[in-house]
């Protein structure tokens, strides 16, 4: 089973990297970019087949390591 954990900065947290990317896109002439926020994506392969168990395990992983819940939100998707 495959899963994807997406980690993004909480709204209101300053994201200088996103700002730099936004500026670069604008200077490249990409139209219509209002704002950019940068995040991380983890593609995880799971050995079990139990969906509920997998989701619980991934949430645990995200809370413990993948995301810093002080500044980041995460989303778990089973693919």
């Amino acid at each position: 089973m495959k899963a994807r954990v997406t980690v993004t900065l909480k709204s209101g947290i300053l994201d200088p990297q996103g700002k730099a990317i936004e500026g670069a896109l604008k200077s490249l002439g990409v139209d219509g970019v209002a704002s950019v926020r940068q995040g991380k994506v983890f593609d995880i392969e799971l050995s079990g087949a139990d969906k509920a168990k997998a989701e619980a395990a991934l949430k645990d992983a995200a809370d413990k390591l993948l995301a810093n819940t002080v500044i980041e939100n995460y989303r778990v998707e089973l693919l």
Partner: protein
Amino acid sequence: MKSAVLVFPGINRERDMARALKLASGHEAAMVWHAETALPKGTDLVVVPGGFSYGDYLRCGAIAARAPVMDAVREFAADGGLVLGVCNGFQILCEAGLLPGVLMRNARLKFICQDVHLRVERSDTPFTRGYNAGQVIRVPVAHGEGNYEADEETREAARGRGAGALSLLLGRRRRRRGLQHQRRGAVDRRHRQRARQCARHDAASGKPRRRHHGLHRRPRPVRRAWSRIWKKRRELLHDARAARRCRGVLSLAAPPPTRRTIPSVPSP
């Protein structure tokens, strides 16, 4: 005082730290590998040094903060032990939940490597006991992720527990004026004078005068320093007497080779 320095893969300042601790306390610091599950018996101070633990992967300090030794450090801290985190060590302690808040990428995305001035706000903590409150000290910093973020509540709570013993001094006007006086001594002298003025003001009013406080010394541009050296060298090469005087001292100014005449041997 017995101290322990934690060692993680990718940490690179552990030897400096051990040396500093030896000089400060007179005792050799114990180096503790991250896979250990206990600290040496009788440890009084645990220091998490700086560097790039685990290559700063995921987030700075995130992986090191989950190492086995950190459980022992958490226990040690809960029992009232002293823990100091410097640079990456600070990030590790934040990630481990031993300190509140988080260190984020610098607002201008630049790695900052410079001397900064810190004001000792309180001298009643074990780490700042040797200073006087109100004293200004200069320390070197080097970090890419040094932007401390925590909500106001967390900061207030931390202050109540004795955090905020040092505060960073920044002042644009002061800094600009400092740049005009790049000579080291001049800035330092001005700085000491200013610190004394501020201390007097604080003592009189009871309120810290933070707004105009502090100077930043910018390292002299390397190019200009070099061009000065080359100019000096030209001068020296043109001045043979100066060159002779400097021979042996300044290899750049070696005198041109002189032809020696061999005295003729008188015939018997």
